[in-house]
């Protein structure tokens, strides 16, 4: 049977002269779902939104390929700025997507209310995506019961007493578990944010 498309690898293979593959891999993991969601919220169909996120990522990848930036910014910064411009332009359709050249990071977007709304949406969504990634990392690190204690009480909003009952654990265990996870989660988010800085 056929494997489902592994576009991640494909993007990597397309980029021969990529400065920092690790940064890019992480970047795609965070940004792909973000672009997708932003497109969907603007009324795009699933297939179109997927195409758009792919398209934007390919464009960004190509911009990286010829990275000789004009501004003295770090690679990750530059990448985020290029991405931000490309994504906001793509989802707001303010101008045809196109110019992602060496000075891409320097380009100023038309400062429409729509664009600035999209920018802050992008920012928030990226943060959430990193948060989700952090959760994913913590989740596999802890026992399923510990995670369940956290999820039931914090995400699903059940009381600790209820959770203690459903999970068959003492109240202290539930408190201990969810506190520890929150602490870990914050540390992990900070680490991911730090990487992204």
């Amino acid at each position, binding site marked *: 049977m056929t494997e489902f498309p592994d576009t991640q690898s494909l993007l990597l293979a397309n980029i021969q002269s990529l*400065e920092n593959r690790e940064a890019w891999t992480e970047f795609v993991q965070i940004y792909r779902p973000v672009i997708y969601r932003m497109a969907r919220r603007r009324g795009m169909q699933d297939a179109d939104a997927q195409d758009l996120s792919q398209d934007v990522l390919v464009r960004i990848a190509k911009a990286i390929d010829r990275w000789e930036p004009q501004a003295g910014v770090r690679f990750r910064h530059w990448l985020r700025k290029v991405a931000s411009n490309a994504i906001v332009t793509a989802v707001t359709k303010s101008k045809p997507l196109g110019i992602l050249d060496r000075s891409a990071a320097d380009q100023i977007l038309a400062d429409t209310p729509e664009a600035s709304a999209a920018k802050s949406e992008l920012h928030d969504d990226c943060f959430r995506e990193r948060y989700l990634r952090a959760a994913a990392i913590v989740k596999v690190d802890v026992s399923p019961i510990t995670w369940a204690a956290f999820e039931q009480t914090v995400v699903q909003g059940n009381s600790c007493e209820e959770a203690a009952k459903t999970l068959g654990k003492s109240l202290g265990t539930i408190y201990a578990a969810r506190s520890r996870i929150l602490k870990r989660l914050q540390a992990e988010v900070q680490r991911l944010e730090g990487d992204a800085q």
Partner: protein
Amino acid sequence: MNSPKHNAPATGCDLQRVQDFLNSDHYHLEDADFITHLDACPSCRGYLEAQAGEPERWEQASKLLQTQEFDQASSAEYSVATSCGVDASQPVAVKDVLDLLVPSEYSNHLGRLGTYEVTGVIGVGGMGVVLKAIDPSLDRVVAVKVLSPKLAHNENARKRFAREAKAAAAVLHPNVIPIHSVSSGSTLPYLVMSYIRGGSLQKRLDREGALPLVEVLRIGSQIAAGLSAAHEQGLIHRDIKPENILLEEGVERVTITDFGLARSVDDNTITRMGSISGTPQYMSPEQARGEQLDQQSDLFSLGSLLYALCTGRPPFRDDTTYGVMRKIIDDSPKSIHEINPAIPEWFAKIVGKLMARDKADRFKSAGEVHKLLEACLSHIQQPNGYQLPNIPNIPNSRPQPVQSNTTGIPKMIKFAAGMITMAVFALVLLPLIRNPWSASTVPSYDHLVPPEDLQYDIPVITVALAERLIGEKENVTFANVTSLEPEVAAVLSKHPGNLNLPAITQLAPEVARALVSKKEGLWLGLNGLKEISPDLARELAAAKCALQLHGVETVTPEVAEILSTHEGSLALGLKSISPEVAEKLAMHDAWLNLNSLATIDVESATQLAKRKHWLTLDGLKSLTPEIAEALGRYDGDKLDLNGLESLELDVAKSLANAKCAAGIYLNGLKQVSPDVIQVLANGNSHLSFQGLEFIDVSSEQAIDNAEKNLQTMGKMMLRRKSNQPLLMLDSHHIEGSDSKGETLSHLWKLRGQSVGSITVRALHIKDGSSQVVSEGAFPVEGKQNQSIEVQLQLKSLDESLPSNGKFFVPSLSVAVNGIATNAHEGEKFTILGEFTTHSTTEKGQLNYENTIMSAASAAELTSYPKTIESMIVASRKGVDFFVVILTWQPINEANRNVGIAAGDLNRS
């Protein structure tokens, strides 16, 4: 959500214990006691939660981790997407499908799908699940392929699935699986195929390893026949691999299945660039690159499949999907014969042609391959009845394994001790086009090139024009504007593109203030400015955009200090720099470009190395060990030293100490020696060697190893683009003897990649002048591993001269890809007295410090750059040089103007 309520620490409880508990990552034995205490102590519970995070943090977690609309699987399940490899959720997919089946009346059946009674599961893949089922109306066993429920609501996947059905149903051929019916409208789209008892070719390969040739031919010819039928319908399979080939039990029939990714040639609306599918190991290079596919791509995959059948393993292997794809693009597989000597050369040749990197070099059609393989099969089965068919030639034969490198360090050949040193100076490398590829772009991305410049030749800018520019994103150049009014400058400042004012040589501070007042993010070019006063510097430094001041050749420390407060990138045309100025510029916190600096002193380099941001010093042509040591202390973003033309080992050692987040760029290096590569790769930075044009084979291996080494440390090496020409020196032989006056011969064996044509020129440099002995231009066909052999001989003539003199005739011959040309002889010359000869090439590197010293003073010679000019100067001291200069051009710009056929060597 359930927020924590208590913040106050309880008296009498061990608060440190709470901290310790939170700070440890894993459970310890004593934690049990603490948890028992927590059970009973509400205040410790409250304190614990307050210490874990403020109430906002708890709320943030609650809010962000809720599933949101349009979350994709990877987000919704907090699942970190694996970058490649097997989808861990596959067993879930089976369960998901089975859960959706209608319960069956038969207890031993898994359920019902439409009218089909499901009796088992055949396999699972990315797209869905294949079930074994009974078709009650015909009472036959069928295979039902069900689109995974997760994908069923994905429009893309549905379209793809429907396309699979349509494509496959259109092909009626014994070697292509028949499709009986399709149901794509229901909640669970599925298609019904013939059930083939037996297993996949992959299973057989796993079980038996390499197959005998007759089996390979039988299977191969049937796959080719099936493909031919599909291709005639305008379909491409896109995923030919052993797993997709079914072997029917008891019958010698091979069936191609899973046209899951097949598509009409003109159907590019759904699967766009980038979203390409296929198992990487059997992918074609064009598929791995994400390019447009055609039927030829299936032929490559068929070649890879046959390779696997002959050797028991796929041609390209790596731990990661990415790695496999890179190898498909860059590498050549090991020769079949080497792995399995039982496979005859002629069959390896067929596989080689199928797997030709260039589509045009493959067979013309699957039908042609089918006929050829059938004929081969007949020959194998009845060698007397059938002759082996003609195997078409491969224009580009697969590359040969790297020949072992010869020692490369020629011994000094002494004819005798004496007055005249005759040096053969070998292979000065001067490519015709300095960097012919710098402008190349991937064709489909042409629209991404930077905007065109708007150039105005008018001498004055009016306010009206400046206002018009506010709406223009283009880069604007005013080539003739020499002065600006403050009002105009204020309006120009709002232009959102790059602004270039090269003719302005003086700028009043108040005009500068107006000019930069609104500029943000883009650059401002004031390259006509020669001098900058402190007042002007203050205004410019306030700019929010990058500044290009390439005309500024000197600055005072005071001005440097002011400029270093500029928050954006800065380019200065400094011709020289003092430690005081460097110290100030070190504080500048963005990209600093000092490309005009051709030299630098140690102290200034030490100061500049303190920078945290990107530093460009492309004007430096060489580094002394001391300067390199100073620059080695740099640990900022990126260090550009793209002007360096050579890099000695001790310099490399010092540079390797630099810690550059974005790498050290050495794109000016055309050659590099293995130990230099190794030293740099053990350093702390990414590396870029995009300018390499000539290396010897051991350097190539060193570069490969260094790249792997860097990758394990998470670093990258930027190398030449795949279509950039590269010449590799395999070996250099010298023949001659130490007795007087014997013929002396130098033979260089080279391999070219993407080299379209070469020009070989031999020079004889003596008595302060240079003359061409012979010259010729040669086309070089093919892309990979072109073989080029250049031989320079100095034949001694028997005619003897009085007073110890000797006649010599220089002669040059060239062989390209095995086709030798007639040697061209130059004019004979005489050498009087005794002399020695020295080779000045060492492993493809020029190296004449060690060899010419005896004739001219070492200091004199080494102070010259290694150029023809330096040899001409040296020749006045009594040294003769023979130089072979090789120039080359890239393949797709193969020199049509030269037009000299192989075989001619023109005397110029």
